[in-house]
């Protein structure tokens, strides 16, 4: 199936709306003592949030393949924002500190499991969002016929 320009715009808008939440969750996972509010590395809450982040993509995108690409897109954007937040103080004080490989490896090492959970939760959220959307459409149609 072809992907039209409007599909890309829709995916980008949805990704930009879900990305801040994903970015915050990654940042919170690496610094739970500094963030407000904090999930305190609770994986169950993280998984439920990941499902919630995926639901709008499924609800507002009817094509499942595009909704899944949207999940990958918002996770990528969110991860990038989280890395930027993780590096923020050093861009002010000493930029050279952020270049050594271990600095980013530490971030990747600490967030690899939440990354997988958020992608998985996002896929599940997409399916739930689509089910919810179809259910609401059916209800709307039934009400229209009832008039």
């Amino acid at each position, binding site marked *: 199936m072809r992907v039209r320009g*409007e599909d890309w715009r829709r995916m980008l808008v949805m990704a930009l709306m879900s990305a801040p939440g994903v970015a915050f969750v990654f940042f919170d996972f690496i610094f739970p003592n500094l963030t407000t*509010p904090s999930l305190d590395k609770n994986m169950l809450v993280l998984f439920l949030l990941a499902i919630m982040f995926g639901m*709008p993509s499924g609800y507002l995108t009817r094509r499942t393949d595009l909704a899944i690409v949207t999940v990958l897109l918002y996770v990528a954007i969110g991860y990038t924002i989280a890395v930027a937040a993780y590096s923020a103080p050093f861009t002010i004080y000493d930029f050279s500190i952020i270049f050594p490989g271990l600095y980013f490896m530490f971030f990747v090492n600490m967030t690899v499991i939440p990354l997988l959970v958020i992608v998985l939760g996002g896929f599940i959220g997409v399916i739930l969002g689509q089910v919810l959307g179809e259910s609401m459409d059916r209800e709307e149609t039934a009400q229209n016929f009832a008039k």
Partner: protein
Amino acid sequence: MGVISDLRKRWFVSALTAGAALFFTVALVYSTLTYADVMEARQGVELRGAVEAAEELDNGSLMVSFSIDVYNPSDKDLAVHSLSWAVRVDNSTDDVPSFLFVASVYNSSSEGIVFPAESTTTVSYMAVVPAGATLQRLVDFIEYSAAQGEEYTLSTMPFVHDFRMTAFTGGFDHDYQYYRELYLNDLVRVERTYYGGEYL
């Protein structure tokens, strides 16, 4: 544009999503600023202006005192975990260090000492060494040094002041459960030392 009209049509979910995005954006910005403050404290806290003094009192006792400024430029308070001050006399002869104990003080977290944000706090200690075994060892040191050609008095002995501070920025210390979470306390811990005239 089709996307916008679609979002308008499904306004309830769109508004919820936009609200959640706004909430998490604010939370991320606030948390990042906190992180920047913590790193500022880590790099910016300094010990300054140490003053060492020793005085022989009229009754023959020795009074030693020490004061030092703790400069905290960050936006967060420093919750003291421990402060320690020890003063000793350098009794080293060769490469192996050796000291005669004079006095020491230790302050723990239970005393609730806080160094406020964006301020300089002076920490002062004073100890009197009365006549007794400790003072007698110092007098013996003076007499032995005199026999070796080094003239000292109780107030001019080679004192070595050792001041160590450990504090947690903003009380952000973490009650960790796993070894992998130790870095959270390393992140917010500020350790500074003044030893023998040098700020380490």
